[in-house]
């Protein structure tokens, strides 16, 4: 599926490097246009942009779901993805979903440990269809973390959750990132979410990076932090939403 000549997997701990990545579908206009992006180990990057700006294509390419046809991508071998939908197998109990594809002896213990981390140990034996939206997304997060990824991709993971659950999940992700220290790429529509969580915000427009700004506000951050104001209007402006 992936053309290996332009797609390499770096040793664990190496940053993600995207070089001159171009992607077209059916000879249409490029969805990604000679894109360059680097993510340092342990760095939390938020990727913003309108629908059709190429966010999802970039994430799918990094996840290995979309082939690299033009350009080069370097990424750690151990990566995990959390999608907007939880994508749990309804016919496997929660803990078996967490360790899906892993077949050694200690899997049950590992599943329990990571479920504890995301606060879901009481639902370990539940069927996925009985979980609430927030619980299912916690399980998806646990499934991503149990593989100890060096690079974690989050594709609008909170978009389908209600506002209160979303706040809890953002806090959870912040805590887990602090603990695991993996590089994170968070695709989101929510400027406030990006400001709350990320070290750096990248705005994508028509397959190219339009804005790339560091977010230096000290952690732990709160939604109402006045330091957000300047960055928020900068990012909203880049997204074509004029607040002033």
């Amino acid at each position, binding site marked *: 599926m992936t053309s290996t000549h332009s797609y390499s997997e770096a040793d664990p701990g190496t940053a993600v490097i995207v070089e001159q990545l171009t992607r077209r579908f059916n000879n249409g206009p490029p969805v990604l246009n000679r894109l360059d992006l680097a993510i340092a180990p342990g760095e939390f990057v938020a990727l913003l942009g309108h629908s059709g700006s190429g966010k999802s294509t970039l994430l799918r390419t990094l*996840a*290995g*779901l979309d082939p690299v046809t033009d350009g080069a991508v370097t990424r750690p071998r151990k*990566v*995990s*993805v959390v*999608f907007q*939908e939880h*994508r749990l*197998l*309804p*016919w*496997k109990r929660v803990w078996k979903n967490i360790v*899906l*594809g892993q077949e050694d002896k200690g899997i049950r213990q590992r599943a329990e440990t990571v479920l504890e981390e995301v606060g879901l140990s009481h639902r370990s034996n539940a*069927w*996925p*269809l*009985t979980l609430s939206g927030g619980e299912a997304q916690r399980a998806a997060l646990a*499934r991503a973390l149990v*593989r100890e990824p060096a690079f974690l991709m989050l594709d609008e993971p909170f978009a389908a959750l209600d506002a209160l659950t979303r706040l809890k999940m953002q806090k959870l992700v912040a805590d887990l990132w602090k603990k695991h220290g993996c590089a994170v790429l968070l695709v989101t529509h929510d400027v406030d979410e990006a400001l709350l969580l990320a070290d750096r915000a990248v705005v994508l427009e028509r397959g190219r990076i339009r804005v790339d700004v560091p977010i230096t506000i000290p952690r732990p951050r709160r939604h109402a932090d006045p330091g957000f104001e300047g960055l928020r209007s900068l990012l909203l402006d880049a997204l074509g939403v004029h607040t002033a």
Partner: protein
Amino acid sequence: MSDAITLTGLYKTAESRGKTQSLRALVSSIRRYMSPVALVCLWQVACSLGVLSTRLVASPIQIVVTGWTLVHDGTLPFNLGVSLLRAGSGLGVAITLGVVLALISGLSRIGEDVVDAPLQVLRTLPALALVPLFILWFGIGETPKILLVALGATFPIYLNLHKGIRSIDPKLVEMASTLGLSRWQTIRDVFLPGALPDFLTGLRYAVGVSWLMLVVAEQVNAESGIGHMMMDAQDFLRTDIILVGLLVYGVLGLISDQIVRFLESTLLAWRPDGRKGRKA
């Protein structure tokens, strides 16, 4: 004020309503069974009075007595065993064949082109029309009977499982690939369990078809089996034996349906209650 009175009135009746409801359910279930029982009684009376000739149809009491005799002299158990073996082997062949073909055509585009088209053509043929050809090809032993059952039962298994595999959410397959599952692991953990509900629906149809094919196979050319027992009885005008055979077929159909239902409720325990055991 009058509102408050109405409400307390409602609460009082709510307590006694439980009893009335269960009583009503009992009456309605009795009423459901009453009409078949009445029909059987009427049938018995008509036979006893000589209105219905026993050459046309035996009386219910006669059927019970004959059934008992057939069980005691070993005729019924022997023939039942033979029939069950045929249906079981035929169904076994059908499940194996149906699953293999559905996997081939469900999991690859080339496989679908090669396998699906001829099967869709064959499916439109009434399987029973192949009886003369099967006797010519395979003689009159066990082979044509088992193959006839297998032929009829393969299609519902294949069609439903194929549909089940094709309708698996591609997002789940994508997820399996990001988790690094091998092709075999994806088939085992994603495709097969995901298509299981459809497979079981197909299995229930297949079981029904098996009995149908068996009846025909055993009545056309056989030396044993329930169908043969019935055809033999026809020569001696023994309507009681024929009716015992019919009764056995009916009970077999019911039992096999219950077995598939039981499989559905155990294997599909992951479904929310509302979707469990849906009607086929």
